[in-house]
């Protein structure tokens, strides 16, 4: 399993992860090496085996539709890098 330079850039873009050229090259080598080692999974016969997404048998956990307290706005906004009044300040989403 050898990842190309372009594939690494494509994955980074999907993850919205900026990478330097040095990081792209290093990840290309390391991820290729890791995936090559993990190819042994393809040998396992999983024909009729269902996937496991979690290890306990609970399903469809519902909550009562009751109003409860939430945290005060000022506490939520206290960690915001940029804010304006009662809002998180974001950069323009449209118009690029």
């Amino acid at each position, binding site marked *: 399993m050898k990842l190309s330079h372009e594939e690494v850039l494509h*994955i*980074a873009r999907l993850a919205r992860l900026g990478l330097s050229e040095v990081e792209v090259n290093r990840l290309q080598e390391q991820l290729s090496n890791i995936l090559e080692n993990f190819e042994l999974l393809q040998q396992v016969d999983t024909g009729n085996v269902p996937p*496991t997404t979690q290890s306990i048998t609970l399903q469809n956990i519902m909550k009562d539709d009751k109003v409860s307290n939430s945290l005060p706005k000022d506490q939520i906004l206290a960690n915001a890098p940029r804010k304006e009044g009662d809002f998180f300040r974001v950069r323009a989403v449209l118009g690029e």
Partner: protein
Amino acid sequence: MMTQDQITIHEAHKLLKSKKLSSVELTKASLERIHQVEPKLQALVSITSKLAINQAKRADELIAASNTGLLTGIPVIIKDNICTEGVKTTCSSKILENFVPPYDATVMEKLNSLGAVVVGKSNMDEFAMGSSTENSAFFTTRNPWDSSRVPGGSSGGSAAAVAGGEAIYALGSDTGGSIRQPAGFCNVTGLKPTYGRVSRYGLVAFASSLDQIGPLTRDVRDSALVLNAIAGYDSRDSTSAPYPTPDYTQCLTSELEGLHLGVPKEYFVEGIQTEVEEAMKAAITKLEELGARVEWGVSLPSTPYALAVYYIIAPSEASANLARYDGVKYGFSYMDASSMWDAMEKTRQYGFGAEVKRRIMLGTYALSAGYYDAWYLKAQKVRTLIRQEFDQAFEKFDALVTPTSPTVPFKIGEKVDDPLQMYLSDVCTLPINIAGLPAISIPAGFADGLPIGMQIIGKPFSEETILKIAYAYEQATEWHKRKPEI
């Protein structure tokens, strides 16, 4: 005042209750010890002296009113991925370097309601991704037994702090061995409860189907006491198990008659250190002498696939969980960006360290169009096989016994350039998270002055069985009484 550096919770509780010692005195001794050894250990990201003294004063009032639980007034250290209201919670990451949670994790609400005293937050591998604390964005914690070696990880700060006498116990989190492996490396007791036993609410998410919070303590009784305090259903964690919790100290007897233990041969992997293998054989023979029936050479044939399964599933879940770090709501934010996307990409580029980026990339790849079936879905199917083999083994055995790690603590720097070698140090612990089982690591020997841990694995929600086995072994041996000189 007498030295309190290495006492247990139950010993300290007796001193507090009989008023031979106050919580303020105990807390001051803990803080003094921290200032004395921290330059060498570097186990803590934050020292919460002021908070601790206030909590200790309140605990002393509770004790004066005879309103005490076993954890009242006892100093504790919390891994820095567990949210503490008003106290920085960094995950040892630049991206959360200044994050102050507006709420407490459920485990913190529980400890606070019992009058616990928080003296610090411990260093870890960034976002709990690692086996040595070398992936911390801040510094590497030292092993108290040899400062040129790692304390294990990712809860390396918690393990080193308990072994080094900084607090009487600690909380850690375990996604693939992150409580047990450092416990083994530092000669303390580390328990990973069954998935769902302890609420994950307020634990910063890494891999949500694998993460569990648990205690690092100086003996097995303390492990049971802390589990009593933190276990139980929580409506705020939808994977929390709605089952009653027993008093985990009731099972602590030295009687192993009638218990049937299996020793899976795949855990004595290629590359296992000879001394570790010998220590395990001696320890398991000891369990036999204590009355357990032992079957050697049991086979769990899918074990060799566990590493690949884990390192596809955990990074996949991590890549989704860590998508929330976008520089908008909290955490580090890159300010000089030209656009929204540029800001987001640069925030993540400069906010995350190398291992976190590696796992986000690996997980994103395994989940991406065209590769999902071949990697992620395949790993989930092999996960089923691993679980089924454990289920079958537990039809016959009450517990399984293995080494915690194939080697003693390794040198700082030894594995940093080779991610696969680093991943292999968790080869004995990560199958347990894949199956959601409870497991405990206890001191079981030394090689050249470095600790060796033994792992005892139980069926789901059988913490009592593994605690009982661990307790019987501990009472019959002296390993846990050895303390490092710092």
